[in-house]
C-alpha cells in the first residue's frame, strides 16, 4: 500500500482532519455542558435505603444529606429542614409554607460533592402524634446576580409515623 497514492492519502487526511476537529472541540468546549445540582437524602449510615419509618416525638434522627455541584461554578447552598404533612409538601416551583426548623449551609466547588450528617429533631405539631408527618429538606442556592437565596425546586422528604414520646 503506497500512502502517497491519491486515494490512500485522501483517506489518511480525512482521518486526521476529523481527529483534529474532535480535539479542538474538546479544548474549546465549556467545562459544564448541562449544569445541574444533585440533592439526596441518605440513611444514618449515609447510604441509600433503610430509612426510618417511625420516630418518637422530639427524637433526634440521624440522617445524611448529599449534595453534588455540577453548575459550572462554585455553589453556596442552604438546605432548609421543615416538618409538614402531605398537604404542605413543596412543589417544583414553590417551597413548603412551613417554617424552617434548621438551616444547613454548604459551599462547593464545581464537580464536588458533600455528605452532611445531620440530627433532624422530630418536633411536628403535637396534633400529628399518631399520624404521618413528612420531614422536608428543601434546597436553596444563593443567586449571585439577584443577591438573594432562591428556591431551586429540588426537595426530598421522608414520611414518618410520629409516636408519643416514651415515659422517662
Amino acid at each position, binding site marked *: 500500500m503506497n500512502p502517497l497514492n491519491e486515494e490512500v492519502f485522501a483517506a489518511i*487526511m480525512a482521518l486526521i482532519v476529523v481527529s483534529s476537529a474532535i480535539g479542538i472541540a474538546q479544548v474549546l468546549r465549556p467545562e459544564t455542558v448541562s449544569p445541574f445540582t444533585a440533592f439526596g437524602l441518605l440513611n444514618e449510615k449515609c447510604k441509600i435505603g433503610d430509612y426510618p419509618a417511625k420516630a418518637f416525638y422530639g427524637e433526634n434522627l440521624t440522617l445524611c444529606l448529599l449534595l453534588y455541584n455540577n453548575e459550572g461554578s462554585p455553589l453556596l447552598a442552604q438546605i432548609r429542614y421543615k416538618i409538614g404533612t402531605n398537604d404542605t409538601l413543596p412543589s417544583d416551583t414553590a417551597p413548603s409554607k412551613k417554617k424552617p426548623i434548621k438551616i444547613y449551609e454548604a459551599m462547593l466547588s464545581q464537580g464536588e460533592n458533600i455528605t452532611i450528617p445531620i440530627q433532624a429533631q422530630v418536633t411536628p405539631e403535637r396534633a400529628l402524634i399518631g399520624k404521618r408527618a413528612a420531614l422536608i429538606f428543601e434546597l436553596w442556592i444563593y443567586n*449571585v446576580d439577584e443577591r438573594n437565596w432562591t428556591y431551586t425546586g429540588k426537595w426530598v422528604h421522608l414520611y414518618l409515623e410520629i409516636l408519643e414520646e416514651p415515659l422517662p
Partner: protein
Amino acid sequence: MNKKPVTMLRIIHIIIIVILHVTIVTYSLSPSILPAKASPSKLQREIIGLYIRLVRLSEEGIDTRELINLLSEALELLNNEDNASNIKAQKIVSKVREAVEKLEAERPSIVISKNLSKYGTAAAIASIPVLFYLLFPRIYLELWYKTRRKWVVEK
C-alpha cells in the same frame, strides 16, 4: 377652662418625645448590646461577599477550589455557634479575603495566560492536518530514498 386640654396636649407631646428617644437610643445601641449575635451574621455576610467575588473569578476560568474549600470550612465553623469556632472562622475569612484581593489584582495576567494556552493548544491541533498535508509526502519520500540508498539496479 382652656388650660386643661393644653396641659394634656403637652403631656402627650412629652410622652411621644420620650418614646421616640427611647426607640432611637435602643436602635442605635442594639449592635453593642447584642455583640454575640451581630458578629456571626456580619461574618456570614462577609463570606457571602467573598463567595460572590470567587464566583466572578471562576467564571473567568480562574481556579478557586482551594479558597472555596476554605470558605466552606469557615461556614462549618460558624454553624458550631461557639466563640472559639467564630474566632477560627474569622481567621480563615481574613486569609481568604487577602487571597481573593491578590487573585483580583492578578486577574488580567491570569486570564491572558489561560486564554493563550487554551487557544494556543487549539491552534496547534488545527495545524496538524495542514502540516501533515505539506510535510508527509516529503518526509515519506525522503525516508523511502534513504532506506533504498544502497539498492543496486541489476540488468
